[in-house]
């Protein structure tokens, strides 16, 4: 093409091509550049004021896009609040805290890439967050390779702590949130106290649903040999119309429902179940034999409000009204003031994760991973959700989260919980080596006598 014939369009093309070229070149250069190496000074006990590092960097990975993007937002509120509080009161041993947020897009490979990018390029000292089971297992596998600690704040698969930490010995991973024990085992403790004997399930069609239902059935049939499990429905994630699942369940005349639906699917499910009379079908004197372990999630409460019937049994990985301690009241108030929302469970776990990192560094005066692991094992921390014991064997934080019945209270913008029932955590967090359930009989008597 002769130069003078080069039209406007071509000119645009070449200019843009040049731009793309520059971006690529710059990108390669940027990616390949050496990270600024932060030299961690040797611990010098004499010099009091010496900082470990100018800024302590924390990488926070959660789902920020797609239908479950709100879960990243809920986590961010917690960790950002903690960061702001800590920085306002002098940081960690004088160092500022900085949190870098990254989207996992709910994909394992993407999250693994982000972990590497955060640690190896951004120089993050810790990783927190992670929403889903499939993602957390992939991420846990790379933690020894990048040699940093991971504090899991949401993902609930028991395989993380039982298989990867305990059996396989990946010591860099800790979980601050209660796993599916809450959704399966603890749920069965509640179910055992209800009159219903025929139970049915409506679950999301993936690992979390299967694991919760398996644990629920196993535990409940031990506690109550008289119960039957009459039906199960597996709804794909993102179901718009739950009615085929609801009616196939109702066909089997259940007296109780166990459902671990969450997020948008839960909103849809509750709305449609209500109109199809599924709640009425499982009514008993004291409410509904309806157990929805993650039902008291803030997003669900804010969306459904009073549409979620009073008397249903719900829980979370933390509920903001429990325990009634000064620390928890202070946290809930700070969260409300800062964001105008009650804290979500993953908000609490993220908040606690940042404070735990602060405590850890203050205790050890170090950023050494092995020192941190040793310090964390069997450590007890005080958090808004109450005292947490970090169990040595599986690095699972043990704390209790109650179930309660939904109550519509005009004094609150969202439903609250009443009739809270908590079981001492060590009774239902499976013990290593995990093949056996904890000895339920004693506890069961205790719980039942209270009922």
């Amino acid at each position, binding site marked *: 093409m002769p130069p003078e014939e080069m039209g406007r369009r071509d000119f645009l093309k070449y200019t843009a091509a040049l731009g793309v070229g520059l971006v690529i070149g710059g990108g390669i250069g940027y990616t390949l550049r050496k990270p600024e190496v932060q030299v961690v000074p040797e611990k010098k006990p004499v010099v009091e004021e010496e900082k470990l590092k100018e800024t302590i960097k924390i990488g926070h990975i959660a789902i920020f896009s797609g239908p*479950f993007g709100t879960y990243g*937002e809920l986590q961010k509120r917690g960790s950002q609040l903690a960061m702001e509080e800590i920085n306002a009161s002098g940081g960690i041993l004088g160092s500022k805290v900085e949190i870098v947020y990254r989207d996992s897009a709910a994909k394992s490979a993407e999250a693994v890439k982000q972990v590497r990018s955060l640690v190896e390029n951004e120089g993050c000292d810790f990783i927190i967050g992670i929403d889903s089971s499939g993602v957390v297992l992939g991420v846990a596998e790379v933690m020894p390779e990048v040699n940093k600690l991971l504090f899991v704040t949401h993902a609930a698969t028991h395989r993380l702590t039982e298989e990867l930490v305990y059996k396989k010995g990946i010591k860099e991973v800790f979980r601050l949130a209660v796993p599916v024990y809450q959704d399966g085992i603890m749920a069965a403790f509640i179910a055992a106290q209800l009159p219903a004997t025929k139970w049915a399930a409506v679950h999301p069609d993936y690992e979390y649903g299967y694991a919760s239902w398996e644990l629920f059935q196993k535990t409940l049939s031990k506690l109550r040999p008289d119960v039957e499990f009459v039906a199960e*429905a597996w709804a794909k994630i993102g179901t718009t*119309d739950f009615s085929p699942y609801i009616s*196939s369940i109702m066909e089997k005349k259940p007296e109780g429902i166990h459902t671990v639906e969450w997020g948008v699917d839960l909103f849809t499910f509750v709305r449609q179940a209500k109109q199809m009379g599924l709640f009425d079908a499982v009514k008993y004197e004291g409410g509904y034999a309806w157990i929805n372990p993650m039902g008291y999630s803030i997003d669900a409460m804010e969306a459904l409000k009073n549409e979620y019937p009073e008397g249903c049994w719900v829980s979370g990985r933390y509920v903001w009204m429990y325990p009634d301690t000064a620390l928890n009241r202070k946290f809930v108030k700070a969260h409300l003031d800062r964001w105008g929302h009650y804290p979500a469970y993953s908000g609490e776990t993220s908040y606690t994760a940042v404070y735990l990192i602060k405590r850890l560094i203050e205790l050890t005066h170090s950023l050494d991973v092995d020192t941190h692991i040793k310090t964390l094992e069997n450590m007890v921390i005080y958090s808004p959700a109450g005292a947490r014991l970090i169990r040595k064997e599986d690095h699972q934080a043990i704390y209790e989260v109650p179930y309660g019945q939904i109550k519509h209270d005009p004094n609150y913008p969202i439903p609250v919980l009443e009739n809270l029932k908590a079981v001492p955590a060590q009774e239902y967090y499976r013990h290593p080596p995990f093949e056996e359930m904890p000895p339920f009989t004693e506890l069961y008597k205790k719980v039942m006598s209270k009922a």
Partner: protein
Amino acid sequence: MELQAIAFQLIIGLATAMLYWIVSSGLTFTFGVTRILNFAHGAFYMLGAYFTLTFFEVLHNYVVALFLGALCVGLVGALCERTLISQIYHLPIHFQLVLTFGLILIFEDLVRMVWGSVPKMISAQFVGSIPLFGKTLPMFSLYIILAGIAIALLMYLMLSKTYWGLQIRAITSNPEMAMCCGLNPTFLYATAFMFGAFLAGLGGGLTLPISSAAPGMGENIIIYAFIVTVIGGLGSIKGAFISALIIGAVESLGALFVPWLAIALPYIALSAVLLLKPEGIFGEA
């Protein structure tokens, strides 16, 4: 299993089927006329839900909000057609897939910027139920079924009773001939794309009262719309209607008889149909 239970399950499945029909009607129509396979159809569906939500919050009238919402999506669709899609009509099909894929990404994030990432609901609209076969059929199922039939009627009337519909049919069956007769393809393609987007928006708005508006809500539904459209035969409106009925029945009976297989059923149906009749039930080879 009693016959009654199966019959009831089929009626419930009819609502699911109509849901799929509502979403795929616009997709297959747009393809039939413009030969554009619009991946962003799910994004238009999502936009429909959000526009309806916003109009509802202002006007407190669901039906008005629904139409205004769908209309806005139609306008967005027309805008996309004029500025972007019209540039690639003459190009191979993969350009469309990638371009409309880009649109999905853009709309997803726009929605998060404007409405936030927290899913939103409006108050339940079609509350109550009617007795049927000794069970209760919820009003919302009935409403979805009626909405599906209404859309089928609307499409029938638009295509067979209006001058626009006549032109659309002409340009669909023989573009060269239609242009020779003086039809304006630019106008027709733009309006056809707009109508397809309008239908997608209507779908999103229609499902709003039974579920919620959330970023990424189109992602899940679009793959089902594709399955329905492909089984029915790409571009065939009648085919989409019938294959939506098939998928709805397969899903609802699957939930009753083989719950553990549920997630794979539509793909099994799709593979089976494609192996036997790759152009779909009503498709042209």
